[in-house]
């Protein structure tokens, strides 16, 4: 099943591995990668917190809008699930968060 997700729009300081250009964008989960230490804590020597990591696929249309070079080309990025929220697919159905 296609899982649609949206990257949260928050802008916290610190060692964040979610690129700003993807915040607020909708994508689909390409594959699940297992659990990894959350770098936002690990970078500061804080107690290890494991977070599921997934690869999310975005269309260039979704990321760049009309400025996209080719709307159907894609971009995949690894995003920790605490950065993802429930997405709404094109026909308006709500999908579950990972």
């Amino acid at each position: 099943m296609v899982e649609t997700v949206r990257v949260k729009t928050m802008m916290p300081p610190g060692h964040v591995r979610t690129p700003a250009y993807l915040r607020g964008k909708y994508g689909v989960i390409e594959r699940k990668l297992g659990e990894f230490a959350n770098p936002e804590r690990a970078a500061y020597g804080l107690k290890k917190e494991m977070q599921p990591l997934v690869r999310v696929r975005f269309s260039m249309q979704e990321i760049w809008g009309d400025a996209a070079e080719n709307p159907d080309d894609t971009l995949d990025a690894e995003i920790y699930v605490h950065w993802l929220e429930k997405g709404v697919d094109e026909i308006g159905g709500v999908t579950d968060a990972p």
Partner: protein
Amino acid sequence: MPHDHHDDDFHHSGMSPSGHPYREDDDHPLTYWQTMEIAMRELLIEKGILTPAEIATQIDEMDSREPANGAAVVARAWVDPAFKERLLADASEASREMGYDIGPLRLIALENTADTHNVIVCTLCSCYPRNLLGLPPDWYKSRSYRSRVVKEPRKVLAEFGLTLPDGTTVRIHDSTADMRYIVLPARPNGTEGWSAENLANLVTRDSMIGVGIPKSPA
């Protein structure tokens, strides 16, 4: 004699005999991070955690990694369908199977097909499959490549000499977290019956990053 250039030659000013400027001596004070690196290294040695020889060995090991390692993996995947399947399922394990010690690296292989072309980038820093391919080229770490290839990949690829047909889907992979990537390029036409060893000579570093394709058979 109207001129005497001895002084210039002696002071290494101006151009070298081959017409290049001499590199300046690095007489400036250490930067913050250079001091930090030296302090960390000296502490590790002082506390008996590492020896200078172990550090030198590790640097040697990193320097010995080169694109030829990745090329051997790609060529094997071209001639051995079962290996290719294992590579696409778990590229770390498949690289270890070929004898490449890639440490804890989590590697994903991305297959180029007749209608899909993959390209890797790290927009946040310079993540690169170093443990398999060695150090990244300077341009891979440049702000220009990192910011442009996610927005206008076709234009960037054209600058590398690779113009893709409109019907090909470009897939960019941003190494944002714990994975590293290697592109499995398509096997060149006209190489039927070639050995993995000969095929490996056609696999370029750029073709494993996705900004190029393998060389054509001569």
